């Protein structure tokens, strides 16, 4: 049975959370650490935007400032996500592990199976992944991730509960996503410009709306870990962030996630390869 590392890293600030995901992804990609499932939360509300999303077009930064919401760009694809009352998962693994397949679609499907198994341990049996590729067409034109449900994302009764995004690099993938404890459509409508939430419901939901009692985040994290271990047929070993990962994450907070250049999207193209060498 394959061994994975389980990290339950609790609440952290926005830039730190994304920096740590990237640092873990790197260490797993180069084989320094086991494939890793990390579960975490947010110590302050954060709006994360997709790798190529147009921040200045899509985000009302004045509203974010007034509401104390940090805006941070991810290395993963997809649209804006407001991280508030949620449990976040991240999976860093080499491509091609048994059960995960080599491609994007298989990885999404495997992760979705773990999430659905975890939700069912919480007593939520109606959660289902959205069907495979190419559904629906071009939802990324929306500013908000939770405005549409695409392949293998988790919805209940047509309302999206878990939104996910992926990065693939050097034979490995990072997938992270938000498991909502509470829906926050009204707030999302205030911080995004091109967001239908300001006009009509987005069709998102949270565990508090779906279960008789709002589960605490620790319970959700434990259930997701158990569900993933069962669905993937792996052994999760409780572990820690390595000193190298922590150091790399601290560096990335400064060089990337708190950098106006990165967050504005004005990164030099050489950032990704050619002139800068392997990225």
């Amino acid at each position, binding site marked *: 049975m394959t061994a994975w590392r389980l990290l339950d890293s609790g609440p952290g600030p926005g830039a730190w959370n994304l920096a740590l995901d990237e640092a873990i992804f790197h260490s797993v990609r180069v084989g320094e650490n086991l494939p890793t499932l990390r579960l975490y939360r947010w110590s302050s509300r954060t709006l994360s935007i997709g790798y190529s999303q147009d921040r200045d077009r899509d985000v009302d930064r004045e509203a974010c400032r007034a509401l104390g919401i940090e805006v941070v760009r991810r290395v993963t694809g997809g649209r804006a996500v407001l991280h508030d009352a949620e449990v976040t998962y991240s999976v860093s693994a080499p491509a091609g592990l048994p059960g995960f397949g080599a491609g994007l679609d298989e990885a999404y499907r495997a992760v979705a199976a773990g999430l659905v198994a975890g939700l069912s341990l919480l007593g939520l049996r109606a959660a289902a992944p959205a069907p495979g590729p*190419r559904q629906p067409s071009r939802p990324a034109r929306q500013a908000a991730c939770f405005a549409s449900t695409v392949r293998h994302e988790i919805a209940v009764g047509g309302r999206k509960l878990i939104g996910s995004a992926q990065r693939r690099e050097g034979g490995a993938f990072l997938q992270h996503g938000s498991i909502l404890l509470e829906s926050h459509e009204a707030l999302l409508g205030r911080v995004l410009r091109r967001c239908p939430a300001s006009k009509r419901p987005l069709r998102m939901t949270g565990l508090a709306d779906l279960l008789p009692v709002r589960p605490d985040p620790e319970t959700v994290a434990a259930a997701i870990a158990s569900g993933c271990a069962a669905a993937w047929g792996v052994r999760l070993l409780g572990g820690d962030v390595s000193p190298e990962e922590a150091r790399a994450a601290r560096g990335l907070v400064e060089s990337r996630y708190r950098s106006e250049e990165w967050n504005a999207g004005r990164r030099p193209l050489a950032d990704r390869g*050619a002139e800068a060498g*392997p990225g």
Partner: protein
Amino acid sequence: MLFPADLKYTKEHAWVRVEGAEAVVGITDHAQKQLGDIVFVEVPKLGAALSQLKPFGVVESVKSVSDLHAPLSGAVTRVNDALEAAPEIVNKDPYGAGWIIAVGFKDPEEFKALMSAGEYEAYLGEPGS
């Protein structure tokens, strides 16, 4: 799925078409199907030096950002500017209008690392490709 016989292929699902001293590069039909709707293609500037099999850019689809790997070493001679406004061309016509960059290749020896259409099709049939 289409695998034009006049192209060469990589395990990272790039294709190469030789046009004189230039190699035109794109991603395969298989790759665009895997990625789904492509929303963004990021490429290096003209003149940037690529190294074979090293990442040179990214392609973002609805749900993933993936590296593009150079099939050959050389300097970028052309980039497909049309993809900036309409990245979905890669989905619609991956071997034609959806080309991504052209490279002035230097070392014909590097072609030995590339696959023929038949070899690529066989590679896709292997588990873990």
